[in-house]
């Protein structure tokens, strides 16, 4: 038989072995992204801080054209939103979230992930959108029971009354 026949046979066998190796690398090896007895807690929301507003004086209003006379004027820049997350009485996350946008006119946002061992936790989460105030705008506390591989999300929706747990 000609060399070509053997080359087709050996070439096919070698290519087959090469592709099998590729197939093993493609799907045969496991990556442990999260330890088996762990769960994932994510804190993520988009919330706007307040804007600095003041009432205009009568003199100021009088100087303005009729159609532009608004009682209150606000700075376009928004205040940062402060958020705290406590687990079992210990602070896990506490941060001032700056407003987005080049001029700081956008809402503040956060996306933070915490890998936690499965188990029970006392969770407290607080949010303040006005830095001039000492008290928090919203506070929520709950008992949390995390199972292995569970994904638990803390969101914030003003229209839903504050923090939302998924």
């Amino acid at each position, binding site marked *: 038989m000609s060399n070509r026949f053997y080359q087709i046979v050996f070439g*096919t066998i070698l290519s087959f072995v090469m592709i099998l190796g590729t197939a093993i690398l493609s799907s045969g090896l496991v990556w442990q992204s999260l330890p088996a007895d762990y769960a994932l807690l994510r804190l993520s929301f988009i919330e706007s801080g307040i804007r600095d507003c003041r009432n205009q004086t009568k003199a100021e209003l009088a100087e303005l054209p009729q159609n532009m006379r608004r009682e209150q004027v606000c700075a376009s820049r928004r205040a940062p939103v402060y958020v705290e997350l406590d687990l079992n009485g210990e602070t896990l996350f506490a941060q001032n979230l700056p407003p987005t946008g080049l001029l700081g006119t956008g809402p503040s946002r956060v996306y933070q992930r915490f890998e936690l061992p499965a188990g029970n936790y006392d969770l407290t989460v607080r949010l303040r959108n006005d830095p001039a105030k000492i008290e928090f705008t919203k506070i929520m506390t709950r008992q949390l029971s995390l199972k292995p591989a569970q994904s638990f999300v803390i969101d914030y929706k003003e229209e839903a009354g504050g923090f939302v747990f998924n």
Partner: protein
Amino acid sequence: MVSFRTSLRRGFDRVERCLDLAFGTDWNPLAHLGSIGWFLFWVVVVTGVYLFIFFDTGVSAAYDSVRRLSTVHWWHAGLSRTLHRYASDLMVVVMFTHLIREFAMERYHGPRWFSWVTGVPIIWFVYLSGITGYWLIWDKLAQYVAITTTELVDTLGFLGQPIARNFLSPDMLSNRFFTLMVFLHIAIPLILLMLMWIHTQRITEARTHPPKGLAFIIIVALVTASLVIPAPMQAAADLRTVPQSINIDWLLLGLYPLVEMVPSGVIWGGIAAFTLLLIGMPWIPANSGDRPAEVFLEHCNGCERCVQDCPYEAITLEPRSDGAHFRFEVAVNSRKCVACGICMGACPSSSPFRRKGDLITGIDLPDYSLAKLHDRIIEVSESPSAQVGSSRVLTLACSHGAGGQPAVARVEVPCVAMVPPSMVDFIISRGLADGVCLVGCAARECHNRLGKKWTMLRLAQQRDPYLRARIPRERVLTVWAGPTEENYLESEIDAFAARLNEMPGYENVRQMVRKDIAKASNFVSSERGKK
């Protein structure tokens, strides 16, 4: 760096020699990496189009349709899916092997920068194509890919809101997101195709499909492997849970574990540094390569042979500008010329027999002119050590193959096709040697793409300029040998010398006159003095 590259080049040569045995020199896959990449791309496209017939977009519809095609229709659609996946993986293997091999061969400096630099975005678009593809299946792996990718992209901070929020809970994910992903999975490979097309510009006869036999071998092996190990599907994605242990594709998604382990700044910095390093490599160190070919119009009749033979589309035909009665002249694009000298070997004016005036040809290399080659040949042939046994064999060797190192009775050239056939005629008919050995790169691939092909056709009198019929073919030996085949080259030359010894002497020898020999020796000495 140089010794590392030399080791790498010799390593490739040794592996390729083994593959020469298994596949044959003309089907050696390492010599066809670019065209295999193209072939795999088309396998991915054809199987992808077929899969699209069965695929439904939607949060649950996507997974269900892929599961159905992988189980109920396993023998055609499921097979297509596995082929789609493994061909994509092989593209990554082929792409990086191609990149490392071109680095080892130092084929990225000077005018070759274009092919090198245009290859860099191809790397990222292959990855993006793969990543968007994995996303569509919407199994646990897709969930992992989606979350890890969006979390990484969100760290750039340029998007209005984090896209990873789409994957916080099942009610936040919409079917429209899958429509977007399908669009991306079609658009990105289309851009990839355009980049691959750009990548093959600037070279003549770009190989965009492998030899049919090699393509047949690859497709048979791919189909067989796909039947033996069908591409698996993991459990359906569930955003209420988080993927813990995943069978990831280490070829297309191999960076993902790293994304989890190191800060995002390091990842983005690494990607930027790797890209910039690759793009900058043609200029590191600054190019000090040979100067491009020059045209000497008084010796050029615009015959176009150099235009046709240039492997890099560096020579163009232009209207005559010097008032000579020819229609055309040639012009060299210095940005494309790699100074291989193949044009000089193609020029009918490259005749060493001329005795009046300086030896100037129509197109010549400033750093290795026809005159220099002529005089170097005479100098080497005059050396007493030029004798191999009882025969005189003069070797003209390409500097990228087994003959790349200096040796007795050997003249190195940038490419073996730089030697015009009339030079072989000259050596034998002037009695400078009993036989001429032309040594090129390994048979599987010429460093300058077409040098071997043109040399063989010229010697076989199938392509201008021919080797004249008066030169007995048995006095010319061609050896194609890679850098690690020095022993093979030596044995071929010894056997050739022994065959020459058996032959009667060449009867049409017209010895050179002494003053020509002296002139050549003076030229070579003065060239050395300049260095």
